């Protein structure tokens, strides 16, 4: 069975008498261990899709199965528990709590999971080491660089060993060099077997993924292709290419930018 199976998702917002379909019948399957990018311009519905995949929101209609569980029927509390255990969020603006140290920020999801202090200490230290921030554990976000903040956020996303890591424009607030480092970290995480979902409008970010789903006007753009574009890049056994392989130039996917711009809001 697939990790994520979405069939005919609709998300409808009522704006006065108008109905706006932010999602207009999206179907998507994601397997365990996949590295996928959801691409599209603003207003394409990619954020709405991300919220539903991340169990922050439920569709107006359609079916969403996460690990074969129907999410649409879950209560608020059950959704919270699911997010806590199965989904690691990485945000564009990092979303660290300014008054907490790096350690305490990473620790937070474990507190909501009700883990003991000893276990938290052990796992948070390991997670900080994994993102290369062992020496910065007691620093507060305002004492960290942008790249370091995003690493803390990634450590926080990993801390409960989630089924998917969901990153929303993870390099959007970073300079290009730091962005490359963060993407390298994502590539490593993917190679280690994590299921990664990138949500981005940046083709440079998206091409790190092995499959790109293009969204336009609330639908998956089949014409642009929901195809595995970077597979050839990472050809061969997974992970064997080493860290240097990922930033290598890749053929640009068929240009989504050529479409006429959607009416702005």
């Amino acid at each position, binding site marked *: 069975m697939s990790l994520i199976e979405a069939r005919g998702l609709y998300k409808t917002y009522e704006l006065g008498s108008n109905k706006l379909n932010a999602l207009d019948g999206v179907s998507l399957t994601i397997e365990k261990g996949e590295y996928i990018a959801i691409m599209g311009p603003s207003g394409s519905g990619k954020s709405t899709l991300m*919220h539903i995949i991340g169990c922050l929101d439920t569709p107006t209609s359609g079916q969403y199965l996460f690990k074969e569980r129907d999410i649409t029927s879950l209560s608020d509390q059950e959704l*919270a528990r699911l*997010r806590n255990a199965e989904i690691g969020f990485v*945000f564009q603006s990092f*979303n660290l709590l300014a008054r907490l140290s790096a350690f305490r920020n990473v620790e937070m999801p474990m507190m*909501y999971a009700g883990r003991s202090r000893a276990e938290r200490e052990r796992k948070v230290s390991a997670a900080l080491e994994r993102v290369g921030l062992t020496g910065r554990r007691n620093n507060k976000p305002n004492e960290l660089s942008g790249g370091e903040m995003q690493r803390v956020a990634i450590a926080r996303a990993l801390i409960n060993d989630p089924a998917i890591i969901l990153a929303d424009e993870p390099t959007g607030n970073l300079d290009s060099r730091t962005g490359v480092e963060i993407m390298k970290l994502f590539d490593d995480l993917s190679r280690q077997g994590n299921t990664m979902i990138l949500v981005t409008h940046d083709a440079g970010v998206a091409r790190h993924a092995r499959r790109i789903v293009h969204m336009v006007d609330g639908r998956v753009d089949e014409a642009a292709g929901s195809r595995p574009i970077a597979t050839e890049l990472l050809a061969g056994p997974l992970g064997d290419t080493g860290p240097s392989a990922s930033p290598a130039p890749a053929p640009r996917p068929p240009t989504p930018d050529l479409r006429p711009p959607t009416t702005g809001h």
Partner: protein
Amino acid sequence: MKFLDLIRTALAGFRSHKMRAFLTVLGIVIGVMTVISILSLVQGMNASVEKQIQSLGSNTIMVAKATFGMGHIDVDEVSKRKDLTVQDAEAMTQLPAVKMVSPVKSRQIGSVNYRGRKATQVEVDGVNADYEFVGNYPVESGRFITRDDYLRRASVCVIGSYLVDNLFPNEDPIGKLLALGNSRFLIVGVLQSKGSFLGQSMDNVIFIPFTTFELSFPKAIGFGGLFGMQIQVMSRSTEQIDDAVDQIRELLRRRRGLTYDKPDNFGINTQDTIRDIYKNITGVAFIVMIAVAAISLLVGGIGIMNIMLVSVTERTKEIGLRKAIGASSQNILLQFLTEAVILSGIGGLIGVGLGLGIAGIISAVSPLKAAAPIWTIFLGFGFSAAVGIFFGIYPANRAARLNPIQALRYE
């Protein structure tokens, strides 16, 4: 989320806003401080009044023209009542449940002088020999008024220790002559000190024989004028006090020829009567105090609610993030509620501390004595925590109900 983690999370919230947290709880601090200081002063007063009431003796009965009490005495009707008489007092000595009886008449004298020294507002009481026991006035030195003094209408007196201190600081008063009204009285004894009550010395008294009093001060005035002569009775034991009261009532009704359908035209008072009067007075004070406390806690609570609402708005993004990483609505509710309760609880503790301090200072510099039983402390703390829950629930609920997606987008 574990309880300790909840508290840790809440505390982290204040550390970054120390000044704001302090100002938020100031209302609670002041409210609790007021309540605790007043409460401990009232408690201290209650204790000293209770001591006074008990010093009357649990088997003491005071018969007067009316029942002691507040506010509900018809002065005209009472002043028309028949005075008690010495014969009434003598008749009471024959009652089976009665041990001793003394007639009492009182008046206040503006000043008593002795060789250039002066004591003011002195109470002079006319009593008999048994009053030493009926009124519980043991003698420190010399002797009390005797039956012989009473029968001979002797011009002798027994004085309280306040008068000794003020009129005879360096000499033995016994054997000295004291001018009261138009006569001179030989001091034959000094009473043991009874201490002071609400800053008023209880030892500013002079006892003279009842018979002599009637000669020297024939005209009754003031409070004594309304109540006239009183008869103080001691029952044989504490257990027999109710019997004694019944027997006295029956005796007086018979002597006054009251038919069964007429109410008593006299009053019989015991320790309980006086305690009831006191409770009536302090009951009103207590209600006023509770009202003041309630208002200040209300104001403090509104302050907390106000700041919590600001804090929820300010931390919208944090709430969104917490929900995204797995906090349930209940977690968020508890987090904000815990913050409110810890804030108000700390305010309550500070208030209790300051209140006790103020009560301590007042009792150090004034005659009022403070006493704070342990329950006042728990009361202060408990009430402020309850205020925290009550006024925290609305902002906390608002935080809990935030939509995580919108909250995350909030800037």
